[in-house]
């Protein structure tokens, strides 16, 4: 049986993924993607995958988001879709 905490996290994951792809402001999309990464990192800590969670926190939520924001700053912020 999957703990209820997991289920809540998984639902939130889908919601943040959809938001990251829906918003037209790419800076906001990058930030929502950062939230997505932190949620998934939490989920992995909950699934006892501590090393993966640590790496995801450092790489996915940290560096990935930063380089995404850097790219938004060097390109256009608005998106058509």
């Amino acid at each position, binding site marked *: *049986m*999957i703990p209820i905490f*997991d*289920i809540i996290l*998984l*639902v939130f*994951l*889908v919601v943040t*993924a*959809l938001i*990251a*792809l829906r918003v037209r402001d*790419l800076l906001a*999309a*990058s930030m929502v*993607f950062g939230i*997505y*990464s932190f949620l*998934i990192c939490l*989920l*992995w800590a909950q*699934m*006892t*995958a*501590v*090393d*993966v969670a640590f*790496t*995801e926190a450092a*790489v*996915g939520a940290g*560096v*990935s988001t930063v*380089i*995404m924001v*850097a*790219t*938004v700053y*060097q*390109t*256009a912020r608005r*998106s*058509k*879709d």
Partner: protein
Amino acid sequence: MEFVEQFIVPKFNYWIYVVLMMIGMHAMIAKNNFFKKLIGMAIFQTAIILFYVSIGVKEGANIPILDHHMMPGEVHANDPVIAAKFTNPLPHVLMLTAIVVSVATLGLALAISQKIYREYGTLEEDDILSQIKLEPND
């Protein structure tokens, strides 16, 4: 309801991973903005990592790090290590690699999209395609 209890609840992780993967893959193929495609790519890759980590979960198991007292030369050095008490470490190892690969791909793809922006002045696929149509090619 019976279907939900039998097929979805016990494998909720697997269902969500498929949903996330489909969201990501659809964005990769159908989104018009290159940056959105890359966000889709990142979601797609994390979905696969979610799948692998879900494989390794054992109910009631602890994190895959042995107690310090169980190491050779310590108090409980002769206690047997029971595999069922620790989460399967192998998917974690594989996924550490996959996370690093995905950030490397993301970085390279962002660099390529910056170069596209430098060349074409936009990241919208339809705008770029209409620019290309005006150029002579084969």
